[in-house]
């Protein structure tokens, strides 16, 4: 203070103090933590992290491990189905709710409430519903269809679809709400115009409304995609990765190797691959969304 001219660092000091948690988080967790994990994925860390660099050995081993390959395959199937189906279901439900119907709030509440529940609760409920001895399969068998078989949780070939049903139950309400908000944002005059021109409603949706809702679709897709990569709790609760390794996912691979298998290097390499997958989705999106604006 006595020097007269304030030092630059102290200008706006309170604001900087208020931002300290953010600065620390960004530096030490988001940037530092990520860099640390990526760096140590090139080491032979086992029980404790150590700096013995082994190049790409961890990655070679990772891609030779059957469990990792199954995890990736599951994530691809789950991710693709979940993206397509939740967009489809979400949009159709939103379009139905947008028809000026009665009890709109009731229907919306019913479709959205699973989103308030945790993946653990979701997984456990569907584990019970899909239980072959008591659940849906037994009920339908009891109705006379004795050859009916729907036993995803004990059948390695379709177990991931059993998880998908639960995941869609939990998450499609959110997509519906986002889509409904998008539909409400569309100018009503467009509907009037298309009606005057005698265009059927489904054509209006397909060729006019959906292209107009591009930003909503992109946001929703990014949101779903970043959620899919994190898929972990649902698997732990519903199947535990089983039967065998049939429903393993990358996030579970990372956790198991880091905290239970005492093979940190594998965990780091696997999580770096997860980061890579997210970057492949995020960077083009960020470029499209923000890159254009800055230049324009």
């Amino acid at each position, binding site marked *: 203070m006595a020097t007269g001219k304030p030092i630059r660092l102290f200008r706006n000091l*309170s*604001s900087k103090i*208020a*931002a300290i*948690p*953010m600065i620390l*988080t*960004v530096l*030490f967790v*988001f*940037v530092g*933590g*990520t860099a*640390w*994990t990526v760096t140590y994925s090139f080491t032979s860390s086992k029980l404790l*992290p150590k700096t013995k660099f082994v190049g790409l050995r961890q990655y070679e081993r990772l891609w030779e491990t059957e469990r990792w390959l199954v995890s990736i395959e599951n994530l691809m199937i789950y991710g693709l189905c979940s993206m397509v189906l939740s967009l489809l279901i979400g949009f159709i*439900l939103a379009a139905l*709710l947008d028809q000026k*119907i009665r009890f709109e*709030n009731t*229907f919306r*509440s019913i*479709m*959205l409430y*699973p989103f*308030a*529940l*945790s993946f*653990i*609760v979701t997984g*456990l*409920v*569907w584990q*019970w*519903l899909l239980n072959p001895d*008591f659940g849906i399969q*037994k009920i339908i068998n009891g109705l006379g269809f004795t050859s009916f078989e729907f036993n995803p949780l004990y059948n390695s070939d379709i177990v991931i679809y059993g998880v998908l049903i639960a995941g869609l*139950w939990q998450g499609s*309400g959110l997509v519906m709400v*986002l889509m409904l908000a998008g539909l409400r944002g569309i100018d009503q005059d467009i509907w009037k115009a298309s*009606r005057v021109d005698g265009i*059927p*409603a489904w054509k209006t949706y397909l060729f006019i409304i959906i292209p107009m809702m591009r930003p909503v679709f992109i*946001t*929703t897709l990014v949101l779903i995609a*970043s959620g899919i990569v994190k898929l972990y*709790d649902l698997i*732990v*609760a519903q199947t*535990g990765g089983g039967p065998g390794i049939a429903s393993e996912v990358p996030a579970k691979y*990372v*956790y198991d190797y*880091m905290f239970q298998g005492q093979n*940190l290097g594998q965990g780091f390499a696997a999580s*770096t691959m*997860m*980061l890579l997958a*997210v970057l492949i989705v*995020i960077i083009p999106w960020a470029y499209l*969304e923000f890159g254009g604006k800055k230049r324009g």
Partner: protein
Amino acid sequence: MADTASQMAPTTARDMTGPHGPKPRRALSGRNIMIYGTLIVVSIYYLLPLYVMIVTSLKGMPEIRMGNIFAPPMEITFEPWVKAWSEACTGLNCDGLSRGFWNSVRITVPSVIVSIAIASVNGYALANWKFKGADIFFTILIFGAFIPYQVMLYPIVILLREMGLYGSLTGLVIVHSIFGMPILTLLFRNYFTSLPEELFKAARVDGAGFWGIYFQIMLPMSLPIFVVAMILQVTGIWNDFLFGVVYTKPDLYPMTVQLNNIVNSVQGVKEYNVNMAATILTGLVPLIIYFVSGRLFVRGIAAGAVKG
């Protein structure tokens, strides 16, 4: 569609003495039957799991073994609920889910308060007191929301261990504050930016400082956004599983972790009614928040979904 056509019936020869306004729709048109029919079928799909959970939790084990999961209980019993709450076993501990419940309360309350306090002040600094470099940090923060948690799990373990907080409640509160920061900061920054700037300028002219304006002007004006942030955080933290497993010790496990351990334990006979009662108990807090807050919950997730 026949319905659209009828709406556009020629209006040229309208008789001004007759009834006015658009032609009233018949309640039971084919279109309505299709819409409501679909919505009702879909609603059943969404409601079925909740119904089965409740019904199963009210049955005795013999009835479950005999009957069908959709049938309402013949004899209602609350014993499974009592057992889930106070007797269910996880490993050697047999004091039920109540311990997990209170752990979750002890985790959620401070985490919600701390994360919202940090993020609101931070969002306010970013909106009204921008300093050099603030935007860079903010951008990285938002991108940080997309980094898979798995990438940062272990570095945080090391950081917490260095601070002597690994496995403690404080450590978990810090973790929740860190991972809640991107979305909450965005929420608050956007809200404070939308407030009229004159207000801020007038307070500056009157000599109010950073904290003065925050506590006396911004805080009282932004109660709705605080409620939205609270809903977001309470449900998010209550439902968390991963951080609870990684950063706490078994006697501090939150309710979700304990629930999973009870239901998916391999020892003993499976008591499905107790499991379902425990599952409902765990889902009850976010469900109550959801049904009480209604529109605000929707606003919260929509705010969380829309990027800045």
